[in-house]
């Protein structure tokens, strides 16, 4: 089996969870990774300071799309103010695959968008430099 494109990665890529739009929503952000043309937007519904529902939408490589899908399952239910504290390492570990320097931004795009939506900070998460 492939190291990077593991079955669950391809599964999330082909059938992404929490994918689509969410109207109405409380928070949103949109960003892209010019390197590979990945685009990702997010719509978030908030209640009691927590993320209660969320949808990603966009297009891109398997890593960026699968990462968004996998991470989306973590984001749902998370207190809003925790998102800003998540770093690249958290996400890479979550994915469980060896991410090379070149693919890092693919993996981190969803976190960048989430941080943009929740904290307004649109810079790359740690390790996405």
């Amino acid at each position, binding site marked *: 089996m492939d190291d990077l494109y593991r079955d669950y990665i391809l599964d999330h890529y082909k059938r992404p969870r929490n994918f689509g739009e969410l109207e109405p929503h409380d928070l949103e952000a949109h960003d892209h990774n010019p390197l590979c043309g990945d685009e990702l937007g997010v719509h978030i519904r908030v209640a009691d300071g927590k993320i209660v529902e969320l949808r990603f939408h966009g297009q891109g*490589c398997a890593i960026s799309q699968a990462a968004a899908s996998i991470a989306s399952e973590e984001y749902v239910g998370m207190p809003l103010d925790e998102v800003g504290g998540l770093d690249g390492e958290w996400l890479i570990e979550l994915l469980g695959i060896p991410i090379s320097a070149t693919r890092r931004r693919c993996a981190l795009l969803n976190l960048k968008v989430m941080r943009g939506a929740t904290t307004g900070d649109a810079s790359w998460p740690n390790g996405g430099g």
Partner: protein
Amino acid sequence: MATAAAPSILDVRADFPIFGRRIDGRPLVYLDSAATSQKPESVIAAIDDYYRRHNANIHRGVYTLAQEATEMFEGARERVAAFAGGQTETTIFTRNATEAINLVAYAWGREHVGPGDAVLITQMEHHSNIVPWQLLCEETGAELRYLDVSDEGKLSLEQLDAELARGDVKLVACAHISNVLGTINPVAEIVGRARSAGAVTLIDGSQAAPQMPIDVGALGPDFYAWTGHKALGPTGIGVLHGRRELLERMRPFLGGGDMIRTVDFQRSTWNDLPWKFEAGTSMVAEGVGLGAAVDYLTGLQMESVRAHERELVGYALERLREVAGVRVIGPRTAEERGGVISFELEGIHPHDVADLVNRENVCIRAGHHCAMPLMRRLGVPATARASFGPYNDRSDVDALIGALAQARQVFGV
């Protein structure tokens, strides 16, 4: 499927040291020459020899090393000029093709382009032939207009005529060969029509100079830019051939050492061409290296390089048809193309394609190829791109085809 490989027109891989490299014990399949070319031994050795035996600052030194270095550098300029059919005094060394184009945008553009004027470029340009004109138009209030690219990846001379007929076009800038589509544009026609309409022309020959015989003199554009690292030469050096009358009348671009004749406290006068446009210490080793590169290419004969690329592209187009889900972008035949093939593979993002074939040491590029407006026109976020150099042969194409099949397997498409 795999062919009894017909002998290639060129058989020069052994001249390129990098192909001695093994990664995970296996050889390199380098299909990214449109991004940068590999370097023959003679180029690497020329740079090495320059630093080991001749290094000195040029033009102003009396001593032996300085004389040698000056002769090596200016001798290289003569050969680089001759290689492209340009004249020595109007062959300016820049940092890369990008700087060459910016030089024209700053030093020519800001004096000749103003409100009510238009700069005409094409939808298939590289960012380096777009952004300088955006900056110029923003600054001067001129309009930036685009020639369309057809579904087959071509320009329309009728549209060019119509644009020129509007009477406001001051400059036409166009790639000789597209780095995405591979399209060889009809630059002689474009230059001729623009000239008749009184527009200045800049041809971006970054992809053409390494691939086919170029005769800037016969082609006749006002400016022709190309870049050393794609033409088997070193990084850090580009070339601008300019029309003498324009260069003479232009203000300088960068100010500093070497480009002056006299400097007084408030005013300076400028050096002769080409040095007027070369400020500060020259890229001496890079010039020497580029001289060795054009010597090498001249030795191969550019007609043969072109024939070699055409043959390889023909073979690759044929073999790509065997791979299910492949869609090739750009002109249909190898005759209409330089050594570049962009394609999509259904169900796999180009970035993943490039990553997957890299497991077989197949080096291709994925992304927008510095041509975002063209991606928009084509309606794709990115493409995968394979491109060829004189050192490639059919076995490289075979390796790509094999790797694509494996990629499809991994993705189950």
